[in-house]
């Protein structure tokens, strides 16, 4: 019996020994084998990194740093967020008590903050009030004992100094959204950061954003701070100097008035964009403010589409401005010569199964090509276009880049459209008719171009066939503006081998438009200006009792070095007549360009 007891005691003792062995093995497993993993997790528990936002780069117009007339277009205003972490309080009542005390110093909605706290994770910081001034933060800090767990953080606010004037070119910033974050997290973007949402802000976000700094905090489980240190100083973003000329931009913006439309001004010798205005516009300062949901929705739902950058994101029939293309096709294929005369009787009858009349807006009589361009005689171009044929016109429209993007350095550009016989058959199940050719020779029908595409085409003509990529970025500077970091080189987009006769004919014809045609208002200006108006019939229903868009395409000086030349494109939606709506806008722009000595010989 006693032996049995001893035996069973040994079994029990053996089991005890086994248990201690297992405990020992698991300790070794945790403390030796998996030590690194758990050390990392312990570090994750107690370390908390607070980002120090990097000041975003400023944006200047083309004369900044060169003379005193330059303007700071976008800058940053120091500002703070007051925040709290719910977990660092004992209970909701304590939070409320502190908030009530705090509301004696800063005005904010306590209920809104409390509901925000209810929604979120107790460890995540909640913004009590954003855009708080330095003075207020100083006041709160000096009463720290009243608000033990109220924190503040740097939150500089982006300031668009000229609001709606530069809205479409420069764009605006906003909080990173889910899909953007998914795409960009590998390039170092964090979920709490802002990024450029459109325009220059988006295109050059990586240059502008800099690199956030970090404060490393040791925190306990209630997120109380045991110690903190600056882990990394923030790196400011680069400053950008744009090609935009503040004065010309403003002149164009003002000249457009309440019209819906766009102005693009380009220097053909480099591709620099001096002006890019689109109307209706919006104020980016309102977009970036915190409680903007209502405004954003209102802007998104606005039928007039204020967010649309009409210079690059919409296309219209080029109308009479396309007569330049028809002329080029005719001259280059040697189907005509500049002094070839056609007679305008006020209409042109296309003979066929059933005769069809195409009308000109006036009876011009006999004219040569110069006069035809100058007076924009449609009868002349019906006859010329018919002679040249659709294939050549399409080919030259394509050569001149009208169905390609200009690759301007802001996102969202769309391409123009030049029809083809194949396209028409596929889309309408009909062959290409002669009537289509007639329509196309005066820029009507299926054609659609973007204003910047049209401006860029003229750049090619003015610059004797060489087209540069239109762009807005002139130079990139270091954050202190002491160092020029980068100057983008001008990029040749294409070279169109146009004969000197063609170029000369087009320029002279456009000059005639000013001296004797629809751009007559520009003739008194001190610099000889060339132009071409257009009045586009639209397929869409009439708006405001008008059914035609107004175009003006021009440049100055008429004869001179291409290096001095500046191209101006004006487009006004439902402007009715190019000569009436678009030319006066161009007039103000040319006047400003002259005033700013763009055409002065060195």
């Amino acid at each position, binding site marked *: 019996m006693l032996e049995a*007891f001893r035996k069973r005691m040994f079994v029990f003792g053996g089991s005890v020994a086994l248990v201690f062995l297992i405990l020992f093995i698991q300790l070794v497993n945790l*403390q030796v084998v998996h030590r690194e993993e*758990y050390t990392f997790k312990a570090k994750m528990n107690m370390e908390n990194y607070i980002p120090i936002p990097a000041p975003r780069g400023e944006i200047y117009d083309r004369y900044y740093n060169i003379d005193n007339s330059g303007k700071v277009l976008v800058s940053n205003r120091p500002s703070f967020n007051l925040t709290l972490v719910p977990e660092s309080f004992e209970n909701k009542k304590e939070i409320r008590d502190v908030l009530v005390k705090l509301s004696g110093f800063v005005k904010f909605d306590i209920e809104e903050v409390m509901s925000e706290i209810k929604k979120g994770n107790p460890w995540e910081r909640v913004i009590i009030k954003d855009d708080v001034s330095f003075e207020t933060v100083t006041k709160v800090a000096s009463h720290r004992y009243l608000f033990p767990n109220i924190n503040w953080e740097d939150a500089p606010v982006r300031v668009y100094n000229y609001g709606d004037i530069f809205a479409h070119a420069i764009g605006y910033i906003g909080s990173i959204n889910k899909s953007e974050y998914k795409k960009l997290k590998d390039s170092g973007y964090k979920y709490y950061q802002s990024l450029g949402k459109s325009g220059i802000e988006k295109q050059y976000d990586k240059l502008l954003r800099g690199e956030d700094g970090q404060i490393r905090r040791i925190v306990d489980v209630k997120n109380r701070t045991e110690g903190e240190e600056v882990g990394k100083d923030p790196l400011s973003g680069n400053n950008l100097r744009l090609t935009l000329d503040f004065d010309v931009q403003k002149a164009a913006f003002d000249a457009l008035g309440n019209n819906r439309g766009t102005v693009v001004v380009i220097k053909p010798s480099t591709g620099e964009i001096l002006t890019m205005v689109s109307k209706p516009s919006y104020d980016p300062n309102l977009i970036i403010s915190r409680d903007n949901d209502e405004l954003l929705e209102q802007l998104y739902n606005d039928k007039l589409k204020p967010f649309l950058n009409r210079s690059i994101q919409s296309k219209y029939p080029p109308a009479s401005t396309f007569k330049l293309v028809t002329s080029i096709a005719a001259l280059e294929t040697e189907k005509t010569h500049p002094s070839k005369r056609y007679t305008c009787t006020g209409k042109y009858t296309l003979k066929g199964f059933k005769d069809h009349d195409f009308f000109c807006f006036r009876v011009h009589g006999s004219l040569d090509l110069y006069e035809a361009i100058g007076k924009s005689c449609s009868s002349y171009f019906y006859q010329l276009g018919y002679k040249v044929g659709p294939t050549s016109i399409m080919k030259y429209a394509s050569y001149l880049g009208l169905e390609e993007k200009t690759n301007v350095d802001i996102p969202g550009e769309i391409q123009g459209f030049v029809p083809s016989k194949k396209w028409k058959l596929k889309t309408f199940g009909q062959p290409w008719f002669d009537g289509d050719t007639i329509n196309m020779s005066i820029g009507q029908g299926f054609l659609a171009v973007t204003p910047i595409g049209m401006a860029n085409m003229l750049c090619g003509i003015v610059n004797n066939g060489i087209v540069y990529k239109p762009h807005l970025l002139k130079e990139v500077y270091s954050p202190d503006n002491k160092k020029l970091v980068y100057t983008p080189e001008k990029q040749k987009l294409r070279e169109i081998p146009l004969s000197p006769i063609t170029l000369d004919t087009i320029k002279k014809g456009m000059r005639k438009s000013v001296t004797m045609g629809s751009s007559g208002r520009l003739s008194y200006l001190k610099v000889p200006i060339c132009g071409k108006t257009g009045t586009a019939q639209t397929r869409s229903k009439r708006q405001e009792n008008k059914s035609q868009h107004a175009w003006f395409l021009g440049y100055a000086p008429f004869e001179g070095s291409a290096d001095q030349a500046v191209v101006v494109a004006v487009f006004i939606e439902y402007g009715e007549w190019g000569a009436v709506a678009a030319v006066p806008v161009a007039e103000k722009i040319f006047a400003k360009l002259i005033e700013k000595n763009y055409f002065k010989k060195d």
Partner: protein
Amino acid sequence: MLGRDSISRMDLSLIAAVIVVVAFGILMIYSAGFDPIDKINSGLYKKQILWFIIGMVFLLFLSVINYKQLGDYALYIYGAMFLVLVVTTFFGRPIRGTSAWLSFGIFSIQPSEFMKLASVILLAKYLELKERDISKFRELLIPFLIIFIPVLVILKQPDFGTACIFIPVLFTMLFVAGADVSHLVAIISAASIALIFPMIITYREWAGYTGSNFLLDLFVNKDVLFTVSGIILAIAAAAFTAHYFFKKPFLRRIYIPASVFSMGLMLSVVIQKLFKVYQKKRILVFLNPDLDPHGSGYNIIQSKVAIGSGGIAGKGFLQGTQSQLGFLPEKTTDFVFSVVAEEFGLIGSVILLGLLAFIIFRGLQIALSTKDKFGALLATGITSIVFFHILINIGMVIGIMPVTGLPLCFVSYGGSNLFMAMMGMGILNSISMNRSMY
């Protein structure tokens, strides 16, 4: 009473080991009570020092009393403790939802701790009396009643962890006292069957399975369960009757497993009703801590992070980030071992484990060398109480046992458990001092 002679006969190595382990514990409670941000200490360690001093008095007092007297009064001790336990459970003011504490104003005691000792004393006495008959199945009834009556009361408190400790102690004592192993296996099998179905059902409900499962749906329905277990029980009864008349051995192979299975099914209905959902969830969280990353699963994860990040040498006294910065929960009580492992590393945790192992093996040695059966069983019982605390507590904090909320004897903060453990050591010492006299 404490003459030179009795001091010389004391088990000094056992007492020394206990003192070192308690001192170790006080050091860790000091560390865990320190707030590195406000730079103040909660002062809990001072109270533990006081408990330790009182505990030493108990230990020495029980050392010099002949443990045999405990055997003589076993039923009275058990009865008195049980009365206190019942009063506490049914009339006490609940603290954090548990009526486990009897409050005396400035301090409170936990009667269930002392019930452990009282039960073991009575059990040892009973098993001594039934020394020859214990291999019979029916003789197991009284030991089970001795243990399960207080267990049911403690479950009522509810204190799942404390209730848990009684059962392995019971089986250990039955085993060393000479119970038939096949009986113990049968009982454990029935209990396992009883537990499995409620667990699976709870798991499915919790994990959000909505689809029905024919077999499980049957086991949710208690009428079906009773019918099935009744049929099996009838088969068992028939086999038993047949065996009675024909004495064919294969019939034993039918009625024994059949009755075990039938009992298990019937018990599963009881368990499904008796166990609180959170208790069933706890066992499931142990099996899969990811089920509850914010609740008790969180505690285990943080404990493992504390222990693992301690490495071999530890982060240093007062330097454990997990405990000092509050990520480790219950760091003075249930998770005090994690603080040791974090601040003193593998070296510290193995030293502590070694000291505890020393106490256990010393207890077993005393049991083995005692010629008196009551003394041997009592020593085994007391040793197994401490041993299962160690197994369940350390097993829990290192993530290989369920989260049951048991303190680590001698080390965790708390007067009642420390008193119980030190009183146990006193009794062990008394057995050790008297073992050669019989």
